[in-house]
């Protein structure tokens, strides 16, 4: 199959990649760059487990072709931490117990980052609408929405392991 050479910045690192025409962005990050945080689940852009940021926009990477992304800048869950510090959305998911099996979590976190970047004061209804492309089968979304609320309240994160009951 024909390959194209493209440049892609992933988590701030520039890559020149030879990609096949049918290679998805999810394939590229998982198999070429060994970034396995983003997950394959529905294969049709419906569940959001593969959500990545492309030029700041949340996309379902399982239905985006890498060859179309020459020059793009991609952020994966592995690139969210700055200086070893968790992103506030990651902190909030931990604090609110916004996860169980964790398989949807990387995609869910990336979507929440995007939602809050674009509209830090989004209402719960707006957040629910924008998160409806990310399916979680464990949590009933209750504590995921709690996590978003924690970020909106400027929560600075959990220090250590003290109880919070």
């Amino acid at each position, binding site marked *: 199959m024909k390959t194209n050479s493209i440049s892609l910045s992933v988590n701030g690192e520039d890559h020149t990649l030879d990609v096949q025409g049918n290679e998805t962005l999810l394939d590229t990050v998982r198999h070429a760059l060994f970034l396995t945080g983003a997950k394959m*689940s529905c294969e049709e852009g419906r569940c959001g487990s593969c959500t990545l940021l492309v030029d700041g926009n949340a996309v379902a990477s399982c239905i985006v072709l890498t060859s179309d992304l020459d020059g793009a800048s991609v952020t994966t869950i592995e690139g969210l931490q700055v200086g070893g510090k968790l992103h506030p959305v990651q902190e909030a998911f931990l604090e609110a117990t916004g996860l169980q*099996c964790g398989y949807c979590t990387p995609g869910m976190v990336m979507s929440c980052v995007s939602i809050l970047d674009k509209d830090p004061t989004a209402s719960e209804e707006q957040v*629910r609408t924008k998160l409806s492309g990310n399916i979680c*089968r464990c949590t009933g*979304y*209750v504590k995921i929405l709690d996590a978003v609320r924690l970020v909106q309240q400027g929560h600075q994160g959990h220090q250590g*392991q003290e109880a919070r009951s």
Partner: protein
Amino acid sequence: MTMTDPTEWKVVGKSILRVDGLDKVTGNTVYGSDFSLPGMLTGKILRSPYPHARIVSIDTSAAQALPGVRAVLTGADTSGTTFGFQGVISKQLADKMPLERDKVRFIGDEVAAVAADDEHTALTAIDLIEVEYEELPAVFDPFAAREPGAPVIHDGVDGNVVDIFDYGSGDVDGALAAADVVVSGEFYSSPVHPVAMETHQALADWDAAGRLTMYASTQMPFQLRTHLSHVLGLTEGDVKIAKMPTGGGFGGRMEMHPLDPIAALLAKQTGRPVRIQYSRAEEFLATRFRHPIHMKMTLGAKADGTMTAFDLDMLLDSGAYVAQASGVARVGSKNAMTLYRVANTRVHSEVAYTNNPYASAYRGYGNPQVNFAHEVLVTELAEKLGIDEIELRIQNGNKPNTESYFGQLIGSCEYEQVLRKGRELSNWDEIHGKKQRNGSKVRGLGVASCINVGGGARDQGDSDSSGCVLIMQDDGSVTVNTGGQEIGSGGSTVFAQIVAEELGVSIDRIHLEQSDTDLMPWDIGAHAQRNVFCAGNAVLTAARETKQVLIEEICRQLECAAEDVSIHGSNVYIAGMSDPQATIPEIARGAHFRPGGQLIWGKGFYDPPTIKTDPKGYGNQSAAYSFGAQFAEVEVDVETGHVDVVRLVGTNDVGVAINPAGVEGQIEGGALQGIGQATTELMHIENGELLNSMMHNYGVPTALDAPPILAHIVESSEPTGPFGAKGVGEATIVPTCAAVTNAVYDAIGVRITELPLSPERILDAIDAQGEPA
């Protein structure tokens, strides 16, 4: 288990952060689907396009000849040994082969498999396999399957009834004749899929000596080892199951699926590691889901509200193979029989084969289906009696420290409180019966309740055991090696809390190890909400033994008496001296490095004091019972038929909540899965063909569909549980369908008896009743 004083607990009862949380929010967790081995090949399975057909011939030559194909397998390459999760109970229940040899029994049945260098080649090779089939008459309706002359799906099972039982006690006919009020109905609970976010995968690798390692995403590694070794003609010692973090269990990962032995056989043939990863469509089609059940139920009561008769006739559509259908039928029946104290009970259950895809375990395991019929009928019964339905439930419900008519020893039981708290939190008295109307939308509030095993479940074979080994390391940190499994529900965090509380070691110095079946102590597995209870008890026992060894070691090193030793944080104190005399790390290191040293460790193996349910349904199969109720508030649009669950209150008696946030998460998640089953989820199976095998057309609720869910924990203290805890994971999905159905009845006065509550069904029911109320 003797209990310490709850007011002194530092870690138990607190919503500490999940011990697996940091890896999960950073994408560091390596799930089975993320893990690969050098030289790994891709395996794919060819499935039957026919619901029932004889395999006449299979020509694999074109597939074999394709460059990049490393192996092609058919049933002829297998041992022909059949397997089935409940094959230990009866040989007839072992009815599946990894690759079928003679005949296929559903659209999706496994026929052949390939291993190739990459996925594209494997898929191409699958298409090149030519199978000649001779189509056979098929049957898709379980009632028709029982009729004389129906196609025989499994040789030797004439009439296609693979399992049949009668539970009961007392005189049901007499009680019904003497009852003041009798209600009766026919119900159908539809097939729904767990839809775990990670699809099933298997990665098999053999070493040079012929020992198999499976990197598996399973709830029951030791059961997988047993079944896999059996079907491969090996013994357990020849197989190692490496337990991988799991993207959702929900019962769907209890049993061995055909892909496990197929991956093993492909790896054996190629001498290379082989991974099979199911596509989402295969996940829907070829993994297990909730049984559709047809139920005919009759209840009788005296005018004072005393329930006197319970009569259930049910038929499960097992699909093409039996899997866990016999267990599902029994568990569902037993729960319904014992939700209320009813002196006269009769259950007749049959499990029929059809040529549909085959069902098995899914969170609740039969209980959600039967509870749907039961709790909808109880609401009708209350109405006919003219008794408040919550009070009727409390009047007939279980009480603490009683024995049920079927021998269950009900210890802790806050059934009354889960209903009373739910009544208050759901604003029952303000909303129920008011039929508040807003345009075409009418509001209703419905309730349903449940019982569920909460202290293990002696239903699978004879074991309900869990093992644990704790080892204190040089620096005083503790490795908890438990057979109890983390499948997402938070078991590992609870285990760490139990160890932290008992040993006084801080949570961040405790490391959970769920490695593989060579190292993990034996455990039956994570099912039946038994993980916290059974594995937790094993962890607690191991922690106590470790503490005893630690104190002996302190006495040896510090030359003191055990009764003078106390430990605060990581400091060791001796009576009469105000300064710490040593630290735990010093003692731990000293234990290893002194001449004649010793390991500071402990073991626990817990098997609850229970017995299997006997052929009439009698027996205390669990060491504790868990109770719950849900109050669903709905808006029914009488013009469109749309049912919107706008709020749900879930109340559960969980014993002591070791991690309250974790318990809330179980209540919230279970409730939304239940709402999905009640309203939008359905496997559309027509003439044996699954028509909606993708995420976009199946109907899993999204954040937009999900209502606010209020999870309320009603604590009790269960004397047999670790720190008083009971199980909770299953009970949270059991009453949802009935609660939503009762809410729809409250809103519009139509009682739906088939799931899901789709707009078509609502509109049809409204039409059938004439003008809505």
